[in-house]
């Protein structure tokens, strides 16, 4: 465990916009896709933060911006106390050692022409390890992820999906990172293999004290692995809370409807459950709705929702939600709420009134 002051990763008002260009002669910027639009959160040592949301909500863009695979349009990312937002690619190199990524598709994220030895040992040698040192470390890591040294000279295509994802994890771990960003690491895998990989990630975290930023669309998986969960909708965090608290008392109607949309693998409970089926699709992120971005699909939206962007209110215990009509909680807690500094800069000052709850 590190004794660094402050959180391992601190993201403040981070924005990633993609320009949309058009024009007859010269391309002018005619709009922007607000992929990540003013997002703040922290991640502590040994902690797992889950990032959920539907496709197009910006979770993958956020993960890639945090690791500086994408250049942020605004805000800052601090890693181990160091501001890495503007670091040059060269100065990023030592940071990259400590911050690794695992990708969704174990079939396309490994170079098919490289042996396992090169895939895992490559980054080690790049950072100055000798061949024999790299081999030794690769063997160690392979065993850690449940493979063996015998697999060193094989090519990715010789492995099944689950084993390939293990190789992807081994590659990320080779440099002993502090933070691993996992982008949909199990969504391409079968259920029984998913369980194996999730267990593996859990045990590695216990052993090495890593922090995970776990991006996924599957809420059940995220709930299983995360300490805290942030729910994203159209580039913004709409709710952030401890994993158990988020699903026991979801405050944002979007979280509530996400939760209710996930089928429960238990027929009796499923029949007893009330379901909210949201209407329509997620709006186009290049032209997001004004006010609260969810108001076009929200079952409890009122006039104010289309006019004012709700701030992230802190309802105590680190439970943040951005909604004018908080759900699942009583008037007393709504009254005690304060505006979180993680609120987007464009959001309103005003906190939800206790009477506004339904």
């Amino acid at each position, binding site marked *: 465990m590190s004794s660094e002051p402050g959180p391992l990763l601190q993201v403040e008002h981070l924005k990633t916009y993609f320009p949309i260009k058009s024009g007859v002669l010269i391309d002018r910027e005619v709009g922007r896709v607000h992929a990540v639009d003013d997002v703040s959160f922290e991640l502590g040592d040994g902690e797992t933060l889950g990032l959920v949301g539907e496709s197009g909500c910006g979770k993958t863009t956020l993960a890639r911006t945090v690791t500086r695979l994408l250049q942020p349009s605004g805000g800052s990312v601090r890693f181990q106390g160091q501001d890495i937002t503007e670091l040059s690619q060269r100065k990023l190199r030592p940071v990259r050692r400590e911050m690794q990524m695992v990708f969704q598709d174990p079939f396309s994220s490994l170079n098919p022409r490289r042996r396992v030895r090169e895939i895992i040992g490559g980054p080690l040698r790049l950072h100055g390890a000798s061949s024999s040192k790299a081999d030794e470390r690769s063997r160690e890591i392979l065993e850690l992820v449940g493979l063996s040294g015998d697999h060193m000279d094989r090519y990715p295509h010789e492995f099944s999906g689950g084993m390939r994802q293990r190789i992807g994890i081994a590659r990320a771990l080779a440099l002993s990172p502090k933070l691993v960003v996992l982008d949909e690491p199990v969504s391409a895998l079968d259920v*029984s293999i998913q369980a194996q990989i999730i267990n593996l990630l859990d045990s590695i975290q216990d052993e090495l004290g890593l922090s995970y930023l776990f991006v996924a669309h599957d809420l059940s998986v995220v709930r299983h692995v995360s300490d805290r969960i942030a729910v994203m909708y159209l580039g913004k965090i709409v709710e952030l809370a401890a994993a158990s608290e988020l699903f026991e008392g979801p405050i944002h109607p979007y979280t509530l409807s996400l939760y209710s949309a996930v089928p429960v*693998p238990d027929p009796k409970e499923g029949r007893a459950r009330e379901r909210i*089926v949201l209407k329509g699709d997620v709006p186009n992120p290049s032209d997001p709705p004004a006010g609260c971005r969810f108001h076009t699909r929200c079952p409890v939206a009122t006039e104010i929702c289309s006019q004012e962007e709700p701030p992230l209110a802190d309802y105590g215990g680190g439970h943040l939600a951005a909604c004018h009509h908080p759900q699942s909680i009583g008037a007393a807690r709504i009254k005690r709420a304060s505006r979180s500094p993680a609120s987007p800069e464009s959001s309103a000052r005003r906190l939800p009134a206790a009477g506004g709850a339904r």
Partner: protein
Amino acid sequence: MSAPLLSVEDLRVSFRTEEGVLQAVDGLSLELAAGEILAIVGESGCGKSVTAMSLMGLTRGANTKIEGRVKLGERDLVGASESELLGVRGAEIAMIFQNPMTSLDPVYRVGEQIAEQIRAHEDVSAEAARERSIELLGRVGIPHAESRVDAYPHEFSGGMRQRVMIAMALSCSPRVLIADEPTTALDVTIQAQILERVMELRREENAGVILITHDLGVVAEVADRVAVMYAGRIVEQGTLDQIFYDPGHPYTWGLLGSVTRLDRDRAGALPSIAGAPPSLIAPPQGCHFRPRCPHARGRCEQVPPLEQRDPKAAGHLDRCWLDLEAKRSLRQVEGGIGLAPAAEAQA
């Protein structure tokens, strides 16, 4: 149950490949009644999609061998000629596929693609087919169907495309609808919309639905009966409650146990199934699950029959030698159903 709508008897599908003969489906039997949703559950490569495709003869080819019987009413589709099958496909049995992003032809308007199916089976004018397409699009919940009928697939989102696929599948009022992982590629809120639509259709049209999926949550939500497939065989079959609350096959335990649940707190490691499914070119002798099963014994080297084990549970069949009492005690893991790791199981 009255005469089933569709009955499959001892279906065997094998493919000749460079490495050898791949037995994708190995003696599969099932029945589907009108108005019923039967879920076929299994992991990738277990033969569930091949089964679905083979029902309509879509796997026919020079390197494929299909044996057994698929009876739609009185007709056998395995022995049917290609031209007989043309009249069945899309008209009596319709199909929706996993990936709505790639299942529509990118170069034709969606209306044209729906009308094409109508006109393949019915002698109607282009205008009439177009009118029907608009009506169908409206029925599956596509807003502004009159104008969207002229849009191209790429102008639709994934959920909307899947609705188009459903509209297309319904266009000739099929008796059987096969839905192959219809929501796997979609977000949960869209998945909920699509599943509602499928349930509505079953009610409105009284069609039999075969739902192929790996997602036990989806199964629990919509299915009436469940067949669990492993390595080309059905290993267990029964009503929804029988499968979820009294599962008889260790593979089913493993599947149920390894599912992450949203309504449960994190409870240590997930009980997972060790290893990976076998190759279907050289599967293990006897029970195919044997190499991964902590309860395997000498007897498992012979294929267990798919039989009813509990005399009181009509229609609940499984393919495992263990006796009923042993099953019920072995599957208990931490108060839930799961496949205990080998060490604990022996203790």
